[in-house]
């Protein structure tokens, strides 16, 4: 199809760049939307999952006699029965395809359980209360096996093995980076080494997961309503695990109450609930309770990192050994996150000699689960910490050492040691803006004065580079997506897209793009996402991709439809198509602004009078397009490196904290983030995502931690023991924007939504260390809970004595 007549550049006057209110906001505000649990078809049965109470055990038998006799119980299914009725769940990203190890993932454990909480049986009853009561009556007879709960311990030769058939507990190991690190460190004036620990945390969206499966025995079709991010992947996974043709499966994504990676696909309950519905021929619903939701790990890593630098602070080489604790394996993509910790190093710093060794290790804990940041967060905590440690060693200001090592704006695109190709950015610009917003020099003076008064104020800076919109060859981590734009006879527009929204608002951004590209009012557009029977093939939400490829493909499709409207309008108005503009639903002649026709009239004319008006124009007001952004390159270079990301957002955090050395309490005093995701389609949506990510990062820096007992049972299983940030814990979080458009996307936008976690962790850790610098402390662990801060102070006191 032909190119559009005109497309106005993005800017404050266009619809792109406006702070358009969230589409469908009124439905959310009045409680009319339906989240998963709000779907209550008549006759729905309720499932409860019976879970292992052993970290590692052989299942000797499951006795469900008593449970089956209880009121309302329709079905009890155990792992052996399920294994006869369903196959393994395919991996979202198969570790074996990347050179790692795999095990078959089943919806219910068959012979062995490998973590406390692993599904071993399911109970279906008329009500949820009846199912819960019966689940409590299911008896699991098992023989305990030795277990290991710590990844470093799991690497020891004599450690218990999580999977008997493996020679050790390593899921995946790989080396990243090029350059002669030995020579670089030998040439360095200073070398610093630290071991840094990031605790296990979780995503904890307000709405837990849930599925409602409805098997229709008459036409043998399965409809699954799901709180999910990736409906097409889920359809494929269920097709594989249930042995059903994909054409007989429909996934409908309900309104999702937050996700942050949790609701990516591969969870055992997806297959399980569908199987239960198949067995019973009735709708079966399962909604995760909060304790179950807390099992999903987001990150847990140990980094031993060394950097060497010249006397004037230029980093010459970096070595990092990463041990990541993936828990038990799952089909969900979480196990792959630590890969991104490795490849995102050395971040936006020009360090060409890097040696990064990654080991992803299985333990007898619940699985690592995809989480906002997807491992990139850890790279920033670690890199920004070690840069501060180096600055302190050299007696340099933390701002200055960063400036000296940044990749310059004139060096873009820049190939990093690990093979990433940073598309664009102005990192010194981010630093300048953050320092200005903090009033850095005055702040340092204030810090000195506070110290004189015995108060411990600290300032922490952290840079963050966020590779986004990943493409993993041979996986369902796709770097493209697909959108259909369809105009009806009345001129109203339906946008059907393969990307989904977990609540962040990309449906609004996509509507804005279509409104501008097509030239119609935003109110005439309806965006439909997440329904595999309606939407084109797509990949859903992850890796900050929804606006880059969902928005990009919507733009291409909208341009096609606009071109058709213009061609038909030119016939109707007897003018040259090149003379026509389309704006707010009106086609107008540029040379004679009085010559106009409404888009709706063009649509009805083409679709009802095609033979009369435009016999040679195919009467279709619809286009389906995929957008493949530039910069992705899967041809390995001479070092075997590929380049899976089109865009690299960047930001620079500045945190100010006050620490009470008597109690260990850290109080946030001020916070600035300068953020650059290229062109902003809707600045308010960008700010909302970024602020949410910062606060998630602040929580993981200060209070959030999954804690297990020695037997592998989760202790922090509610919001009273797993502490999310609340409104009262925060200062005003200030945001400054910088815009360096990406050359590789339709509108110059880059992925947004993930940046914030790692930067916030690092900025706070750096600020706490800065606050306590009179005590000579080194911060090596997050979260910095009061007991941890006191431990750090004690450690420093011991060292100094």
């Amino acid at each position: 199809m032909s190119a559009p007549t005109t497309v106005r550049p993005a800017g404050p006057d266009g619809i792109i760049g406006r702070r358009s209110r969230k589409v469908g906001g009124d439905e959310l505000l009045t409680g009319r939307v339906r989240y998963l649990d709000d779907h209550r078809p008549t006759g729905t049965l309720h499932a409860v999952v019976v879970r292992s109470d052993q970290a590692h055990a052989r299942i000797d038998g499951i006795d469900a006699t008593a449970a089956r006799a209880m009121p309302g119980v329709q079905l009890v299914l155990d792992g052996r029965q399920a294994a006869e009725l369903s196959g393994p769940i395919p991996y979202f990203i198969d570790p074996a395809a990347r050179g790692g190890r795999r095990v078959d993932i089943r919806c219910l454990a068959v012979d062995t359980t490998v973590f406390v909480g692993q599904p071993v049986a399911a109970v279906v009853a008329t009500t949820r209360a009846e199912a819960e009561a019966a689940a409590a009556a299911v008896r699991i007879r098992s023989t305990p096996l030795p277990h290991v709960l710590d990844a470093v311990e799991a690497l020891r030769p004599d450690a218990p093995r999580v999977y008997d058939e493996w020679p050790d507990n390593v899921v995946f190991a790989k080396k990243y980076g090029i350059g002669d690190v030995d020579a670089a460190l030998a040439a360095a004036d200073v070398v610093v080494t630290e071991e840094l620990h990031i605790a296990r945390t979780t995503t904890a969206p307000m709405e837990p997961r849930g599925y409602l499966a409805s098997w229709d025995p008459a036409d043998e079709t399965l409809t699954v309503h799901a709180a999910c991010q990736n409906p097409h992947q889920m359809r494929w996974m269920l097709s594989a695990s249930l042995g059903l043709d994909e054409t007989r499966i429909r996934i409908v994504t309900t309104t999702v109450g937050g996700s942050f990676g949790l609701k990516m696909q591969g969870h055992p309950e997806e297959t399980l609930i569908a199987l239960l519905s198949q067995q019973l021929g009735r709708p079966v619903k399962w909604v995760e309770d909060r304790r179950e939701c807390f099992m999903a790990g987001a990150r847990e890593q140990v980094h031993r990192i060394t950097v060497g630098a010249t006397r004037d602070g230029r980093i010459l080489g970096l070595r990092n050994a990463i041990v990541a604790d993936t828990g038990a394996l799952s089909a969900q993509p979480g196990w792959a996150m630590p890969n991104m910790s490795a490849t995102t190093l050395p971040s936006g710093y020009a360090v060409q000699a890097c040696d990064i060794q990654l080991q992803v290790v299985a333990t007898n804990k619940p699985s690592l689960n995809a989480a906002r940041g997807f491992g990139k967060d850890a790279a920033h905590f670690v890199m920004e910490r070690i840069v501060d440690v180096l600055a302190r060693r050299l007696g340099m200001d933390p701002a200055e050492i960063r400036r000296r090592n940044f990749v310059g704006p004139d060096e873009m695109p820049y190939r990093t040691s690990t093979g990433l190709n940073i598309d664009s950015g102005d990192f010194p610009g981010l630093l300048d803006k953050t320092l200005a917003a903090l009033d850095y020099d005055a702040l340092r003076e204030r810090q000195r004065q506070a110290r004189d008064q015995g108060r411990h104020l600290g300032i922490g800076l952290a840079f963050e580079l966020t590779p986004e919109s990943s493409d993993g060859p041979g996986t369902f981590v796709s770097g493209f997506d697909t959108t259909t734009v369809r105009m009806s006879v009345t001129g109203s527009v339906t946008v059907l897209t393969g990307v989904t929204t977990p609540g962040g608002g990309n449906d609004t951004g996509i509507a804005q793009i279509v409104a501008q590209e097509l030239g119609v009012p935003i109110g005439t557009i309806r965006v439909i996402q997440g329904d595999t029977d309606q939407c084109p093939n797509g990949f859903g939400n992850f890796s900050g991709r929804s606006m880059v490829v969902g928005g990009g493909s919507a733009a291409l499709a909208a341009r096609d439809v606009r071109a058709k409207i213009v061609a038909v309008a030119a016939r109707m108005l007897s003018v040259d198509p090149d003379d026509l503009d389309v704006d707010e639903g009106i086609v107008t002649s540029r040379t004679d602004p009085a010559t106009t026709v409404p888009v709706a009239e063009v649509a009805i004319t083409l679709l009802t009078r095609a033979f009369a008006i435009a016999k040679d124009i195919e009467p279709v007001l619809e286009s389906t397009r995929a957008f493949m952004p530039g910069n992705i390159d899967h041809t390995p270079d001479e070092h075997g490196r590929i380049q899976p990301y089109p865009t690299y957002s960047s930001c620079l955090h500045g945190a100010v904290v006050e620490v009470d050395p008597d109690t260990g309490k850290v109080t946030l005093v001020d916070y600035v983030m300068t953020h650059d995701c290229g062109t902003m389609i809707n600045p308010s949506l960008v700010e909302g995502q970024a602020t949410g990510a910062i606060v998630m990062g602040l929580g993981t820096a200060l209070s959030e931690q999954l804690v297990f007992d020695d037997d592998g049972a989760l202790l922090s299983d509610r919001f009273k023991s797993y502490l999310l940030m609340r409104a009262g814990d925060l200062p005003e979080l200030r945001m400054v924007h910088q815009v360096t458009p990406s050359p590789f996307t339709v509108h110059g936008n880059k992925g947004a939504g993930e940046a914030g976690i790692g930067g916030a962790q690092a900025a706070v850790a750096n600020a706490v260390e800065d606050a306590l610098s009179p005590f000579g402390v080194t911060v090596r662990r997050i979260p910095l809970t009061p007991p941890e801060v006191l431990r750090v102070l004690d450690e420093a006191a011991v060292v100094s004595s």
Partner: protein
Amino acid sequence: MDVELTVNGRRRHVDADPCRLLVRTLREDLGLTGTNVGCLTGDCGACTVEIDGQTAKSCSVLTGSAAGSEITTLEGVAGPDGELDAVQRIFWEEFAFQCGYCLPGMILVTEELLRREGEITDADITLALNGNLCRCTGYMPILRAVRRCVDEARAGAGSAGVTEHQEPA
């Protein structure tokens, strides 16, 4: 047991176990799914409703103990024709929600705050919101929205309710 509740201005009778959680009765027996379940431990606030003029977490209230009460849920905030009230409109304009799951708590707590007499400080706002978790927004736009709700309500109420924070509408 027959329990009488007045919900969003309408008298309702439900045949419920008096020990049934109020959130279950509202959602499952009365079909008012605008009230959400986030934790069932009283920590997140997604199940917040108003009972006789005071907000409460309906996961921590038994249906029997709410008998005879007047209850407002999120569905009851907008006008009868669905017209958004000032708090809802300002929340929308300020991007004070993303996924919307926390809105029962955030909206109803704000409505309660606005009924308070005298000055409402930023600390009052923070304290009012502190029982409600939001994982999407980072709270900043919510705090801004509530501040604006307070200021506009005071400006609209005339001199009696004017505070030093108020700005002319």
